[in-house]
């Protein structure tokens, strides 16, 4: 019993071919959209790649880019095929290619779905990557003279200004690292030396933050130093403290930013996947209808189109049998053509002679 069997008259087949040709061209456009979405995501990740620890997140944009290119090629070919399918003579050209084409498109469509699902599942990996990356970036903030890390200070400052965030989880992260380079510390000053000595690792730690943590919404000039010392300033109360620096951590800010982008991209890719599935179904119907018409012999007759020839269970059974028989072909007992040597050795010479006679 065929799955999804539909009857097609000649006019209906031609109409289906035309519609599918148009849909395939629209799919080429959606393929271009997919490609540009991948490119956009790649550029966005590249912008802040310095504060991400590993570049594992690059596989999502690369997948989208390759899937987009593949979509363009496959659907362009599909358009050509569907255009020719309207006429039974031209269809003969494509007859052998159709089945592999459909299988290819099926795999490609599943890749699109995988791409969409990946967009949604990347959050936890991104969070881990951002945590490690930001921690390292803050650690190397002061190393503006080390090759490979000279621009990390500028990147972190621009990040904090643009995303209105401070530190990894909050502004206190800056209290735990030395973010002022030793070359700008006056080692002859006793206060500086005391501070260095009071720390186990000899780091110059202080309760101050860089200027990029300053909030532009604060009504008073920014307080960056001696943040833990309430008495160092006039009227430094709770409210002033709340508005003085950016409260959000940069990890959270970047995570929200990228999750937002990925969710919208994921939604678009899902819609594109649904559209591709529709096109695939249409092409399958067209293929089966055309093949059945050829079997019937007369191109003007009605024919059946289906998605699967037998039901899913029967197809599974027949495939299973094929696989079983694949294994069997190396066994000896069933095949009558194979010469099985018997116990008596004296039969060997005449049998050899017989073999020679047969071959001559």
């Amino acid at each position, binding site marked *: 019993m065929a799955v999804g069997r539909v009857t097609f008259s000649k006019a209906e087949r031609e109409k289906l071919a035309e519609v599918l040709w148009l849909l395939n061209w629209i799919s080429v456009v959606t393929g271009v959209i997919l490609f540009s979405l991948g490119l956009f995501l790649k550029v966005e990740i590249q912008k802040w790649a310095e504060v991400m620890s590993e570049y594992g997140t690059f596989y999502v944009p690369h997948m989208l880019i390759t899937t987009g290119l593949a979509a363009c090629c496959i659907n362009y070919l599909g358009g050509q095929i569907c255009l020719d399918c309207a006429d039974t003579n031209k269809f003969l050209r494509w007859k052998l290619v159709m089945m592999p084409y459909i299988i290819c498109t099926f795999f490609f469509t599943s890749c699109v779905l995988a791409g969409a699902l990946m967009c949604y599942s990347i959050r936890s990996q991104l969070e881990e990557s951002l945590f490690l990356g930001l921690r390292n970036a803050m650690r190397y903030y002061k190393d*503006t*003279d080390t090759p490979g890390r*000279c621009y990390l*200070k*500028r990147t972190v*400052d*621009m990040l904090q*200004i643009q995303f209105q965030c401070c530190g990894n989880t909050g502004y206190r992260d800056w209290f735990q690292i030395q*973010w*002022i*380079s030793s*070359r*700008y*510390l*006056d080692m002859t*000053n006793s206060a500086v030396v005391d501070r260095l000595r009071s720390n186990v690792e000899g780091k110059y730690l202080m309760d101050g933050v*860089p*200027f*990029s943590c*300053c909030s*532009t*919404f604060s*009504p*008073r*000039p*920014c307080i*960056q130093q001696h943040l833990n010392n309430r008495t160092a*300033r*006039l*009227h430094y109360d709770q409210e002033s403290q709340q508005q003085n620096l950016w409260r959000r951590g940069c990890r959270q800010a970047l995570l929200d930013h990228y999750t937002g982008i990925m969710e919208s991209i994921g939604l678009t890719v899902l819609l594109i996947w649904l559209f591709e599935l529709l096109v695939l179904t249409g092409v399958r119907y067209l293929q089966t209808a055309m093949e059945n018409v050829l079997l019937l012999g007369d191109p003007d007759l009605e024919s059946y189109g289906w998605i699967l020839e037998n039901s899913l269970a029967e197809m599974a059974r027949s495939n299973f049998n094929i696989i079983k028989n694949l294994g069997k072909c190396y066994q000896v007992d069933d095949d009558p053509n194979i010469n099985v040597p018997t116990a008596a050795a004296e039969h060997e010479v005449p049998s050899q002679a017989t073999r020679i006679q047969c071959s001559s």
Partner: protein
Amino acid sequence: MPFMPVKFTLQKRVKLAQGVWMLYWLSVIVGIVIFSLGIFFKIELRKRSEMMDNNESHLVPNLLMLVGVLACGINAFGGKVCHDSLDPNKFSKWKPMLKMFLLLCCGFNVLLLLVALLCFLMQFAVYLTLAEGLKNGIKFYKDTDTPGRCFMKRTLDMTQIEFRCCGNNNFRDWFEVQWISNRYLDMSNDVVKDRVLSNVEGKYLMDSVPFSCCNPGSPRPCIQHHLTNNSAHYDYDHRTEELNIWVRGCREALFSYYSSMMNSIGALVILTISVDMAGLKYLCTALETMTDPENPESESEGWLLEKGVKETLADVLSKVKMMGKTNQVEEGQYVQSVVTQVFTDM
């Protein structure tokens, strides 16, 4: 002798009509672009109106929007006329209106020229408004509790960060102004009291700048306070230190931003004028001078001006002189007929 005459066969007329029709629709798109540029310019001016003391003139963006809408209308109408001109029957219905339309086109081109000129000249006004506005902005930076000026601090900080600039002319403008409000100054502190008293107007002045002047590209953490005191910071020379804070003034930064915008808009408007040229003129004169009006396939001649340039100018001058004289003698219909004659001969 007509000025720049060209012979037209039917084929050539058809091609000309098609070409001019495309040109008109291109002009409609350009008109839409000018309209949206006017809106964009208006929004940009509004965004930073606090930097200009809310005093900026919206003349240029308003004119641009008006001109954009007019361009769309006139060019769409011209396109319609071109489309109909291929069929002499349809064209005859437009024929009496054509002269009026051509006049309108000429007037519109003059308006476009005026708008382009304004785009280039109004930059001086923007410069002066910016200078005044920034000076006041810096003065009112500390007044975050005064209604009407609460957001000046935020706006100025964001402008300095975004445009990478500091102060009006340069960072020293901050040294002349008290930018820390008295509410955050500890008046019981001797140092603070000394500083306030040492100043004639009782202002708390210091050689410091706000944090938004800091340059993120500096290799060392930002030095905001005691900028001119080399001994206050380790290994610091204020004369050679370039990367610490932004050295450009905000007036220059904002002005270069607005002037580049106005220059490109002015250039686009001039381009629109050149696109709106005499295509239709050729077409309608070509059709008018058809030797055999009943036979659409006959040849005809088209020109820009019926007589040569000098002669036309002389004609116009004499007509204008006559107009002046006849005003004294007789008005009404005679003047009207002379005016129509002047325009008919153009």
